């Protein structure tokens, strides 16, 4: 009786190691293969379809909190101090002469100053900001409702998406694809909580958080919420933008739908 028991005891640690994780260790299972990655992408389409089409009503609101829940420290991420010349110049005058351009597939291209934006229908909300990295902060945001801006310009029937072009270059590239941009669909563009925020935590939006204007898309992760928004365009597809995946981080492998 004792002999097999002893043998087993002696070998089981080696057995667990050999039979368990080691064969996979250091193996990437084709993580750099475009075919593997596009297969894995199928799950992202499924996630989007289920979250958007099956579970969620168009206007379901992200949870909102009272002012007491606002985080003492809100982590600034991505660009925090853009050095692109046009932005630096506009910042010097505290964005007094700066204007948001609205164009693309719209009936009436317009340009809106900060005071124009402040005069539009607005919304104030205390929401949780969820970063793709895993952390969360709660902050208050106030801004012009994106739906009001789009209605002022009038979307053409062909418009399917809204693109946001930003002032910051997050990665230096030769072809200019390091400039930040984002795209959202019309469901999110017309969502009541989707605003272009000029105020954070009851004060004018700071440069580190995206002054003069930052997009808030509260049902998605932080990388969708473009900072330093300079120009928005209604478009019918994003293949021609950047590297063709619909946003700066999307071009670098992240999902276009960032609801999870």
């Amino acid at each position, binding site marked *: 009786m004792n002999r097999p*028991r002893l043998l087993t005891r002696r070998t089981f640690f080696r057995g667990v190691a050999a039979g368990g994780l080691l064969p996979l260790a250091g193996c990437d299972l084709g993580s750099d293969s475009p075919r593997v990655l596009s297969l894995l992408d199928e799950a992202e389409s499924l996630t989007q379809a289920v979250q958007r089409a099956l579970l969620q009503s168009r206007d*379901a609101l992200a949870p909102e909190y009272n002012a007491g829940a606002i985080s003492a420290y809100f982590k600034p991420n991505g660009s925090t101090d853009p050095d692109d010349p046009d932005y630096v110049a506009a910042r010097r005058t505290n964005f007094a002469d700066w204007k948001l351009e609205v164009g693309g597939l719209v009936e009436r291209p317009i340009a809106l100053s900060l005071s124009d934006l402040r005069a539009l229908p607005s919304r104030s909300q205390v929401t*949780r900001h969820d970063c793709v990295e895993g952390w969360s902060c709660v902050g208050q945001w106030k801004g012009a409702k994106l739906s009001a801006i789009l209605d002022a310009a009038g979307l053409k029937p062909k418009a399917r998406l809204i693109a946001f072009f930003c002032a910051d270059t997050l990665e230096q590239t030769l072809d200019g694809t390091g400039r930040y941009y984002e795209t959202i669909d019309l469901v999110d563009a017309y969502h009541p909580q989707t605003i272009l925020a000029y105020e954070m935590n009851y004060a004018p939006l700071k440069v580190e958080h995206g002054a003069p204007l930052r997009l808030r898309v509260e049902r998605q992760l932080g990388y969708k919420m473009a900072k330093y928004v300079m120009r928005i365009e209604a478009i019918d597809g994003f293949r021609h933008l950047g590297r063709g995946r619909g946003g700066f981080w999307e071009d670098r492998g992240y999902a276009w739908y960032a609801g999870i």
Partner: protein
Amino acid sequence: MASISSAPAAPRAVPQVVLRHSALVRICHWMNALCFLILLMSGLQIFNAHPSLSWGQTSDFDNPFFSLSANENDNGSVTGVTTLFGHAFDTTGVLGASRAADGEMDERGFPSWATLPSYQDLATGRRWHFFFGWLLVLNGLVYVTNLFAGRHIRDFLPTLHDFRTIPRAVLDHARLRFPKGEEARHYNVLQKLAYLSVIIAFPILILAGLTMSPAMDATFPLLPAIFHGRQSARTIHFALAAFLVAFVIVHLVMVLVSGVFNNIRSMITGRYRIPEEAP
């Protein structure tokens, strides 16, 4: 005993082989094992993007109750530090700082051999995680449907009598003495409790994972309320994953010490030889 040839068809001489696991359960088991391994390793990749845990709705950047970090020393060497409830431990080489493929000691939550991909790549880790997350959920739905439709859940529910046998079962397991004969035809109390805890842990772990999704929280505001906030949900997701790792280690040890060939065969072909009672 020696007169076996003169006693025709003596039943005791034939080893009793039973069908222990149905084909469906066997397929679900191996599918679950594959999914769990990929989810664990891609999950550690995702964790490494923010290698600390907080409680509540938001992150505590200054004093998280658990964190993996690295310190660069004056002589240029790098030390990995694991912090738990304010106590710091030197875990260089494994947690906080470990060697990459090029041999460099890098700041890294979990080491490259434990993550998928092995190099730092949050975007790809997320793709693996959500693809196999879907597989795990669909596989789990098949398993749980069968579990209740076939009333197999009864196999895992301990009886009052079972609870009284816990001390004895613990003692027997510690001595590596396992049930034989009639007793080996059903799960003992420790097996029931272990498997039941896994059946309960998986749905909670999945719900905690979904609570990290801002779209899910907008759809089901109850989710963040149940888990006491998104960062708590992240912590619970991590803790339950750690619990399942502990289960798998104990499970594999038990497979090895209680008749490894018989056990593995029963999960591949379904056939399990009932260990004979000592004469």
